[in-house]
């Protein structure tokens, strides 16, 4: 992507990222507990989180849930073959659908011509097929493939700046 996306981070930012990406303690004042590890105040931690959410450094703060455990266990990726000139319009339309959690334009090649990727999450294959058909109708593109997941082989959160990260 673009080089200018990178934010300037100091040592305290890095230390906060390392702590905030881990599971927060379930205690009355979790941010106080985190602040004590860094010898800063609870207020500083709270305002850092708010600043990070505003700058986009942190996309969100909250719970990551295992959707498979609550019955949302059909999670196909849909790859769309869309002419270059329509990518922007189609991407915006697809992204408006609440069923779509991720919508990306990706590099194409002769071997692999699909340009837009959407992730959808639902409870059955028939529901997934129906959503895919609806998305297809909305953008008037019929050239797409549904890549159903057969098995989750790995799912974990990224640990940035961790020593093991090599």
């Amino acid at each position, binding site marked *: 992507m673009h080089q200018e996306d990178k934010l300037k981070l100091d040592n305290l930012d890095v230390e906060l990222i390392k702590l905030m990406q881990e599971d*927060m303690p379930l205690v009355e004042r979790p941010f106080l507990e985190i602040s004590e590890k860094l010898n800063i105040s609870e207020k500083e931690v709270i305002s850092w989180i708010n600043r990070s959410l505003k700058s986009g*450094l942190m996309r969100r703060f909250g719970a990551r849930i295992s959707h498979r455990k609550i019955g949302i*266990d059909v999670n196909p990726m849909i790859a769309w073959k869309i002419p270059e000139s329509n990518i922007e319009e189609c991407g915006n339309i697809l992204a408006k659908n609440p069923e779509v959690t991720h919508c990306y334009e*990706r590099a194409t090649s002769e071997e692999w011509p699909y340009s837009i990727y959407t992730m959808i*999450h639902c409870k059955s294959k028939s529901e997934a097929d129906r959503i895919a058909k609806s998305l297809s109708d909305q953008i008037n593109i019929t050239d797409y493939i549904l890549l159903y997941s057969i098995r989750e*082989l790995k*799912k974990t959160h990224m640990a940035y700046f961790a020593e093991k990260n090599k």
Partner: protein
Amino acid sequence: MSDEKTIKLTEVEETLLEKIQHNFPIVEKPFDELGSQLGISGQEVIKILQKLKSEGIIRLIGGVFDPRKLGFKGTLVGLKVDNAHIENVVERINKCHGVSHNYLRDHEYNLWFTLIMPTKEEIDAFIDDLRKEEGVISLVELPAKRIFKIDVRFKVKE
């Protein structure tokens, strides 16, 4: 699809799960705040969260960072791997700390994983090695050109 069984939730659990995916209060006493929204105590909120964690419904409560803002590079990789070698290839991929998601998918390109690393050079080196792995017939690397949407929130309530 999956071998995990679906767990039934109470209404309070469902409401709490919806709230904490995106509206986690960033205040001194977040669990008290959630409790007051739900009409229960902060201690009760903590008890429910502990239970949902032990059941594996909540993986983690914390920050989700944008790799690009941290200066990291990311990509999506799809592989066509012959079945005889798939286990070894999966092991090779999963060992890498930059791989956060890896799925077996119902397609000729049967393995799909996301890769996030500090530099493009490290991504290229990892992918070059992977191409040489026994059983890898073909590999496509699909770096993102544009993000139209990332909004991972799951509807818990019907």
